[in-house]
Each structure stands twice: as structure tokens, then as C-alpha cells.
């Protein structure tokens, strides 16, 4: 568990970067520190491994004040990943990854085999291990950066916009990959980002900071999206926060009506097996069209997309066999309806 | 006395006695000569450095051989260079010294100009090309200004080393303030020698400061960042 207790950082020039910040991050959670530049999110992160010392307040990891530990020992026990990876350009990939194990006094063989294991985990094959950072793509460098941070298996990981320097497609891949790995590894992670979508994808908790390092809100991504405490958080999360929220919810969270209960004159056309094939107006001839049904396991956002794509303004839910089980209208996708359904 | 008489052929003023007072005209005379040599050498060096650098920049194949050649020139001790130029320019006039200094200047400048041009960010040159700049206009209007800090650094180095190196000419009866070194050591006048050394150092520092200021005035955009 990481605890920040009324932590303040005032720089010598008088700027207050972080102001009376208190938060608690249970073990195994990923906290996304979200904010614009000047919100003190990076300063907050760097105070945890004491690259910056707080002016006031205490930071503790598993109940131990970080200042009670030797600063280098502390850092070796915390994984650290930064934008553009910060790989050592004069060392090969494998030597970069073995940095911390070697500092901790592991022998060469153990360090290397651990590093190879990690590289494999990150989808970097053997031939990469003897390359130099400059010979890798941005995405590969970031993977090596994360592998280096995890090499000594630290319980805590600090990540400062780790995927900020790669293109959006690679970034999305890395986010998903990281989220998947994190489910296996169960590290306690603090992740700095200014990208709301990234925070939602990787974070199990989101802390929104406003300028001057004041905590605006902390909560699960769903909480923050559904119930922003004020206009600042609402603005920051974006006008499409409801859509983002739907992306986090299962389709089953959306109210389903029976096929017959559509509040309009549209009807679902079914084939002999009960599978939807199109829409028609009540009493009018059957107009078959291409439809996108919502399958089990989809997100609530898929319901929204299906409803918007359909002529009738409603989405059709199907079961594993493709048999229609119900419909949802745009009304059912409102926050109020979802919360009523829950 | 005989050696001194040949060294001061013509009518340069002559250092009298072991003290400084009464000898300022000597310092003034050789300082003026020193400045003249320096200006001519720098001007010559600059004049030839730019086309060569432009060529090396446009045709990168040419740069390694040019660089190798400049390295060889730079490896030649100045006295040896004076001698090497002797058969072509004569042994008894100022030309070998000035040309030798111009050569060193050229060597320093070509390297600095090319490195400065290479350091211009690729996206800037791409943007300039994209905006429709012609080659020469892009060079003069975009690349060269951005390379000014490096070029000025090269000019400072060239000026300081030229001012310092001209004195070696004193060993062969030339070399402006360097003649005060030679005369000082020949006649055992510490003060003349020391004044010469101080004059050279001061001259070099003034030239350095002037160039530094010129660079500062020429690159307002580098100051905006820190303000």
C-alpha cells in the first residue's frame, strides 16, 4: 500500500507544485494520476522514489516512511519507467534490463535468465537482446523500459507517461498489453498521464489533479466518469464521458426490453431460428437490412453503437447462438437508466 | 645591437631601457600591426570557408576528404607552415604568416560551419523546402542563421588562436607583437616580453568578447527562450 499524507512540494522559486495531497493506494491497484501540465502529477510520482523530496508531509510504502530507507535501496526496490524509456544508449537491451538485479548483487546468470524471461513476456525475441536501444523502434524501447523496471520483481512500479512518446496505435497496443500483464503481476502501480482514455484503460483508480497539485477527485474510473465532483473534473473527463463510461460497463448493465416492448412502430424481423435479420415498420413490408447485434460479453458502448447504427434507434441483443433476446433504446443508455438497472 | 637593427628594419619604434615608461609607442605600433594581420587573415579565412562549407554540406561525399585535408593542415606546426609557404610567398615578408593564419582559420571555420548546418533540425529544413525556398535562399535565409551560434563559436576560436599564433612569427623576425617576444628574449628585457604577452592576451580577449557580442546580437531567438 502506498500512502501520501498531506504531502506538499514547494520549489525554491516559490511555486507550489503539490499542495496538501493525501491519498491511499491499496496493494495491487493501478493509480492513474491524471492532470494537465503544471498539475504536479510528475512531481508527485518523483516524490515517491525520492527523486524529489517533499517539503512537508509523509509518503509511506507498506507502512514504512520512504525517508527512513536508504535512498538508493529504496529506488532499487521500486520499478521506474519514464517517457522515451530513458534506456542507457551505451548498453545492450539485455544489459539495460539486468541493471537493477546487478545493482542488487544478483549473479550474472540469474540476472540474465530473469531478463530473458521478461523480454519474452514482452514479446521481444532473443535476437533483440544484444541490440542497442538506438536499433529499436519506439514501441520496443518502451517495452524494454518496462522490462528493466520489472527485472528485480519490485512490488511497486512508478510510470511517468511511459507510452507518451510512441504513436497512437502502438500506444493503444502497449496500454492493452500492460493492462493484461498487470492482471497477472498484481503490482502496485502509480501511472502518470494526461490522457483520459489511457487513465481509464490502465487505471483501477484515477486521481484527477488540478493546477497547483490539488486533488480534485479520486475514485474508480467509473466513479469519476459517472459522478465528477465538479465542473473541472467533468470538463477534464470530457463531454463524451458518458460514452467512455459505457465502454467500461458490460452490455448486461443496460436495461433490455422484450422484443415486443419497443416504444415505437418498428419491429424486429426474425428468421425461423429466432435470429434477427432486419427491421420493418409495423404493418409495412419487410425491409431487410444489415444489422449489428450486440453479442454476449460486449460492452455497453457496443449497445450504443448498435443503436446509433440502426434505423430504428434501438440495439438488438443476441445470445451465443445469435438468437435475439431483447432490445435496448437510446433512453436505456442514459446514466439514470443504467444506475436504475444496477 | 646588430640583430636588433635588422629586426627593426624600416622605421618601427624601438624599445628603450628595461622599463615600461617611454615605450608605449612600441606596444601601440605592434598592437596595430597585430590587429591588421588578424583582420586580413580572418577575412581571407571566412571568404574561402563559406563556399567550401556550402559544398561539403550540399555534397556530403566531399566532406570526409575535406575533413581529412583540414586535419593535415591543422597538424602542421605554424613555424613549419611559414617555411612551407616561404618558397611561394617569400621568406622575408609578412605574407606567409598571414596566409598561414588564414589557413588555420579556414580549417576551423569549415568544420564549424558544416557541423552547425548539420545540427539544424531536419523538420526545419523540410518545412523550408516545403514552403518553396530555393536552395541558395534556404541556405542563406534558414540554415545559415540557425547555424550562427556554432559559426560564431568557430570564429571566436579562430580569432583567439590567430592572435596567439601570429606571435610565433617573432621567431623569424616577423609576427607583430611576437617581435617584442623575440627582442625581449634576445636583449634580455623581461618587461618588453611580458608586455607583449599581456598585450596578446588582452587583444585575444577583446576579440573574443566582440565576437561573443556579435553572436548575441545576431541571434535574438536564442535569448527569447531564457527570458
Amino acid at each position, binding site marked *: 500500500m502506498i500512502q501520501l499524507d498531506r504531502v506538499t512540494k514547494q520549489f525554491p522559486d516559490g511555486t507550489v507544485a503539490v499542495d496538501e495531497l493525501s491519498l491511499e493506494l491499496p496493494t495491487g491497484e493501478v493509480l492513474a494520476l491524471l492532470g494537465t501540465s503544471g498539475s504536479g502529477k510528475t512531481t508527485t510520482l518523483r516524490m515517491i522514489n525520492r527523486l524529489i523530496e517533499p517539503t512537508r508531509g509523509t509518503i509511506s510504502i507498506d507502512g514504512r516512511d520512504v525517508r527512513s530507507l536508504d535512498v538508493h535501496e529504496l529506488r532499487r526496490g521500486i520499478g521506474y519507467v519514464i517517457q522515451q524509456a530513458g534506456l542507457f544508449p551505451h548498453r545492450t537491451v539485455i544489459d539495460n534490463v539486468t541493471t537493477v538485479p546487478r545493482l542488487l548483487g544478483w549473479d550474472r546468470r540469474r540476472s540474465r535468465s530473469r531478463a530473458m524471461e521478461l523480454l519474452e513476456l514482452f514479446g521481444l525475441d532473443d535476437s533483440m537482446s544484444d541490440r542497442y536501444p538506438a536499433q529499436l523502434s519506439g514501441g520496443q524501447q518502451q517495452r524494454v523500459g518496462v522490462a528493466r523496471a520489472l527485472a528485480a520483481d519490485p512490488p511497486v512500479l512508478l510510470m511517468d507517461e511511459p507510452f507518451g512518446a510512441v504513436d497512437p496505435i502502438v500506444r493503444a497496443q502497449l496500454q492493452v498489453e500492460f493492462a493484461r500483464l498487470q492482471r497477472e503481476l498484481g503490482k502496485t502501480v502509480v501511472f502518470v498521464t494526461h490522457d483520459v482514455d489511457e487513465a481509464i484503460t490502465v487505471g483501477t483508480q484515477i486521481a484527477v489533479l488540478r493546477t497547483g497539485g490539488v486533488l480534485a477527485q479520486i475514485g474508480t474510473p467509473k466513479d469519476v466518469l459517472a459522478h465528477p465532483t465538479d465542473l473541472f473534473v467533468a470538463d477534464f473527463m470530457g463531454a463524451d464521458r458518458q460514452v467512455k463510461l459505457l465502454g467500461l460497463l458490460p452490455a448486461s448493465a443496460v436495461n433490455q426490453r422484450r422484443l415486443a416492448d419497443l416504444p415505437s412502430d418498428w419491429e424486429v424481423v426474425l428468421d425461423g431460428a429466432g435470429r434477427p435479420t432486419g427491421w420493418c415498420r409495423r404493418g409495412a413490408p419487410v425491409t431487410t437490412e444489415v444489422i449489428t447485434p450486440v453479442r454476449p460479453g460486449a460492452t455497453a458502448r457496443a449497445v450504443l453503437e448498435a443503436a446509433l447504427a440502426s434505423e430504428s434507434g434501438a440495439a438488438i441483443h443476441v445470445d451465443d447462438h445469435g438468437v435475439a433476446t431483447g432490445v435496448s433504446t437510446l433512453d436505456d443508455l442514459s446514466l439514470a437508466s443504467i444506475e436504475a438497472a444496477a | 645591437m646588430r640583430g636588433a637593427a635588422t629586426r627593426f628594419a624600416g622605421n618601427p619604434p624601438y624599445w628603450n631601457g628595461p622599463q615600461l615608461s617611454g615605450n608605449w609607442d612600441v606596444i601601440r605600433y605592434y598592437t596595430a600591426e597585430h590587429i591588421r594581420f588578424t583582420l586580413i587573415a580572418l577575412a581571407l579565412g571566412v571568404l574561402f570557408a563559406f563556399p567550401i562549407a556550402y559544398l561539403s554540406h550540399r555534397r556530403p561525399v566531399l566532406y570526409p576528404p575535406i575533413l581529412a585535408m583540414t586535419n593535415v593542415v591543422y597538424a602542421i606546426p605554424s613555424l613549419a607552415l611559414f617555411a612551407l609557404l616561404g618558397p611561394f610567398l617569400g621568406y622575408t615578408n609578412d605574407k606567409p604568416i598571414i596566409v598561414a593564419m588564414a589557413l588555420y582559420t579556414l580549417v576551423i571555420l569549415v568544420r564549424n560551419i558544416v557541423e552547425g548546418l548539420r545540427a539544424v533540425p531536419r523538420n526545419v529544413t523540410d518545412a523550408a523546402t516545403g514552403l518553396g525556398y530555393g536552395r541558395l535562399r534556404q541556405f542563406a535565409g534558414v540554415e545559415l542563421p540557425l547555424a550562427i551560434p556554432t559559426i560564431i563559436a568557430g570564429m571566436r576560436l579562430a580569432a583567439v588562436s590567430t592572435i*596567439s599564433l601570429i606571435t610565433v612569427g617573432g621567431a623569424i623576425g616577423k609576427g607583430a607583437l611576437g617581435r617584442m617576444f623575440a627582442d625581449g628574449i634576445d636583449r634580455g628585457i623581461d618587461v618588453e616580453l611580458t608586455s607583449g604577452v599581456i598585450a596578446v592576451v588582452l587583444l585575444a580577449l577583446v576579440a573574443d568578447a566582440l565576437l561573443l557580442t556579435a553572436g548575441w546580437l545576431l541571434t535574438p531567438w536564442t535569448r527569447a527562450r531564457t527570458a
Partner: protein
Amino acid sequence: MDPGAHRMSVLVEGVQWLFDSGNWWGNRGIVARVVEHLEYSGAALGVAFVIAFPIGLIIGHTGKGRFVASSTANVLRAVPTYGVVSLLFIWRPLTLWPLLLALAILALPPIMLNTAAGIANVDPQTRDAAEGVGLTGFQVLTKVEAPCALPLILAGMRSAANQVIATATVLGVKGQGGLGVFIFSGYGTQRYYIVYGASIAIIAIVLLVEAAFAVLQRRLVSPGLRVARIGKQLRSRKSITLVGNSAR
């Protein structure tokens, strides 16, 4: 006589003088002078390195004192070696060793400034990562900053060596030692072929030393930095580093 032929003949005589084994041996022979030349240059470089390298490391690592260092370097560069040698000769004509000081002055700026610039130019992200994973200040310097700065440090030493060897010529001003003795005496007696012969020897030594540094660069510098440089040229460099040269 045709002046062109005269030029050539003086050069040819210079080469002949250099390759005439009759001029090689003895304590005033070419070999002895070459050895002296190398001894004095090497000693001056060594002295300069011991002083300039640690200062450069500290300035680069702490980022403090850069202005003082570059100003000092400029003053040192402005000092005319020939003048200092002459002064020292007047004050202490008995031994050559004080003259090393005059040569060492030349070597200080390139070693100090290149070391400082090399360290300061290390990518801040790399340094941050090094600290962040738990390297101590000393480990950051020795394991990350110094190896990354090595190309520039070696370039500075190469430049210093080049200047010192070429400038060591002035040690011959009153016949003290090194190959400069031939150059000064050749001038004095108007036997210019000796000047050429000795100059060729000095140039050859400088080029050999340059080649040695090129080999050293290849051996010592991590291949990772060589690859990195190609990519780096596309980006702008933060501070411009001069592989500085000065008086000889």
C-alpha cells in the same frame, strides 16, 4: 634557377635529410629529438589530463561552474605559448620541465570543456532513469555519464594531443629540445630543407597519434552510441560542442 625547381628541390632535400640514416643517431640526432618531442608532449598531456579531466567531470555532473570554466578556457587559449616559453626561458633557463607548463596550458581547455560538454549532453532522460533505478551519484557518473560522454572526451584529448605535439616545436626556440630544435636552427642558418624535414616528421607524428585515437575510439566507445549518433543528427543538439583547438 627556375623558382619552381627550387621549391621542389628544397622539399626533396628535406625528405632526403629525414631519411638519411646519418642524421638519425646520436644525442642530437633525429631519433633522440623525436623521443624528446614525444616525452615532453606526453608529459604535458598527462599533466593537463590530471587537472582538466576531474574538473570537467565535476562541471558536467553538477552543471555548476560552466561559465567560469569556459571563461577560464578562453583566457588559457589566448595565452601565446611562444611568449610563455620565452618568459620561462628568461626566468629559468636551466631546465626544460617548466616549459611543460606552457604546453599543458594548451591542452587544458579542450580536455576540460569536452569532458564537461560530454557529460552535460547526456540525455536528461537517461540520467533520470539511472537515478530512478537506484544508481548512486558516483555510479551515475562512472557507469552512465562517463561512458556516454566518452566520444567527446576522446575527441577533446585528440585535439589536445594534436595541438601539444604541433606546439612542442617552440621548445626548440633556444635549442632546448624536441624536433623544434631543427626547425629553429634551420631557420637561423637558412637551411630550409631541415625545416621541411623536421616539419614532415612532426606532421607524421600528429597523424599517427590521430590514427591511434581513432582506434581507441573504436575500441572503447560502445557501439550503441555509434548507432545512436546517426539518429541524433536528425534532431537538433542541445548545446553545441566544439572540438576546440587553439594556439600552437
